[in-house]
């Protein structure tokens, strides 16, 4: 990993307006948790709400992929689109180091906004109860954002429509098709995140039932992330300027 590329990427992300949007998005679970805390009916089950609706629901299925998608495409897609990537690529820095630096910054930025928000939201809802749920989802989010960041880094280099392709993957593939075809769970980053989270707590199947066991989820997550990074490096090594004149 190249520290200069990493610093540049971090400054790129910090300077983007979309980063404010991402931070607001990441704060959404905290707002929902506060609403629950003050407005939930007396017989509500906090563990069920935290594991199923909030952390296992909106956070893992929507906020995790969106935040990572925005950071990963912001880290790489923009300078490929406007041509500034040439200033990094016309140097002897190995393309692998460039990919890894951008991926690492996109992942770190996603972790920095996702995990504190999810932990805070979990603590607000559970109030110290539900042992392992918060830890489990923190681990699941860390692993999930790792794989999503790798996949979206590859997408950013492979296509100029990475944002659209990423949204289609998240909402069509993982959101809709995975409900119709159970085999899709093996190719769903969301299911890896949920499966890994499930290793840290034990709730009744009616409350929370991951579609993948923790061990296969972790192995698949590692394999897919590795494959995506490999593809990203290979793609950048063959990257061509997209204009002729």
């Amino acid at each position, binding site marked *: 990993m*190249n520290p200069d590329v990493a610093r540049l990427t971090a*400054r790129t992300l910090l300077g983007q307006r979309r980063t404010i949007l991402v931070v607001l998005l990441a704060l959404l679970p905290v707002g929902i948790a506060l609403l629950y805390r003050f407005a939930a009916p007396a017989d509500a089950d906090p563990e069920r709400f935290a594991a199923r609706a909030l952390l296992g629901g909106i956070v893992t299925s929507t906020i995790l992929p969106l935040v990572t998608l925005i950071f990963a495409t912001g880290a790489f897609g923009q300078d490929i689109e406007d041509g500034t990537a040439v*200033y990094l690529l016309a140097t002897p*820095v190995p*393309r692998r180091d460039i990919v890894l630096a951008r991926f690492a910054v996109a992942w770190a930025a996603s972790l920095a906004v996702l995990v504190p928000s999810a932990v805070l939201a979990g603590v607000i809802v559970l109030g110290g109860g539900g042992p392992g749920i918060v830890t489990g989802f923190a681990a699941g989010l860390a692993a999930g954002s790792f794989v999503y960041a790798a996949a979206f880094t590859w997408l950013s280099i492979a296509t100029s429509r990475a944002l659209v392709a990423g949204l289609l993957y998240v909402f069509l593939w993982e959101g809709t098709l995975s409900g119709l075809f159970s085999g899709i769970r093996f190719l769903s980053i969301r299911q890896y995140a949920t499966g890994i989270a499930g290793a840290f707590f034990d709730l009744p199947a009616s409350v929370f039932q991951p579609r993948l066991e923790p061990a296969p989820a972790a192995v698949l997550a590692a394999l897919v992330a590795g494959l995506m990074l490999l593809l990203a490096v290979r793609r950048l090594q063959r990257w*061509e*300027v997209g204009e*002729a*004149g």
Partner: protein
Amino acid sequence: MSEPAPPAIELRGASRWYGNVVAVNDVSFDVGPGVTGLLGPNGAGKSTILHMAAGFLRPSAGEVRILGEPAWRNPRIYRRLGLVPEREAVYGFLTGREFVELAARLHRLPDPAAAAERAIALVGMEAAASRPCGTYSKGMKQRIKIAAALVHDPQVLILDEPFNGADPRQRLHLMDLFRQMAAEGRAILYSSHILEEVERLADTVLVIVAGRLAASGDYRQIRALMTDRPHAFTVRSSDDRALAARLLAEPAISGIAFEDGRLEVRASGLLAAARALPAAAREAGVTLYEVRPTDESLESVFSYLVRR
């Protein structure tokens, strides 16, 4: 006996096509130390050639080498190659100094700050180096891009339309800089669609038209080819008919016509016409009001070179 040094830039039968569209067709040339201008109209394939030479486009056929090494998929070449792309975009949030220093760090130079200061001074950007690049004019962006490309003191420099956006003073400054670098033994290849920019700077000219190398050599030879080609003029005088009658006797004049009441004269060459027209006017006692070339566009010059 030692091997001769490989050319700085070498294209051997290089072609590049996009689907059915041929952007560059079987181009071969060597670029050695000195300034070489790549001249051609917009869309001729100049940028494609430069991108292939800089390792940013894979040749569909043929070979492209930098100092004897393949250009494609070989980041090692950037230790000895500097590239100034045509696109204006720079990292707008970095100051000029940060931008050039970043390039120095990426090249792993021992003292990036000092190297950046040197490169910034070369392009005369010291005063604005602390400002973010996003606030720069087009010409300033061009100069800071050149500083970033020069920071590691490359042996080969490739520039795509480097004078775009530069004002006349900056243009002269950059031309002096390139001449000085060439005098130090570096190879500089730059593209332009403006004849004058090439004429004033380049020792050698490569003329690209419709993806092919139409002419190459010393710029004076190319210039002679351009001036010795048939020229057409529209002439306005105190007595067009008397002038036309006298011009018919001039061997340098190959054709006379009246179109829409205007006298159209065709000559075998520019210099021949420049001599024949005033001489004929004087002998016929006619005053010349206007002599205007009708096909002096760069495209017409290029199309003539291609037809030869």
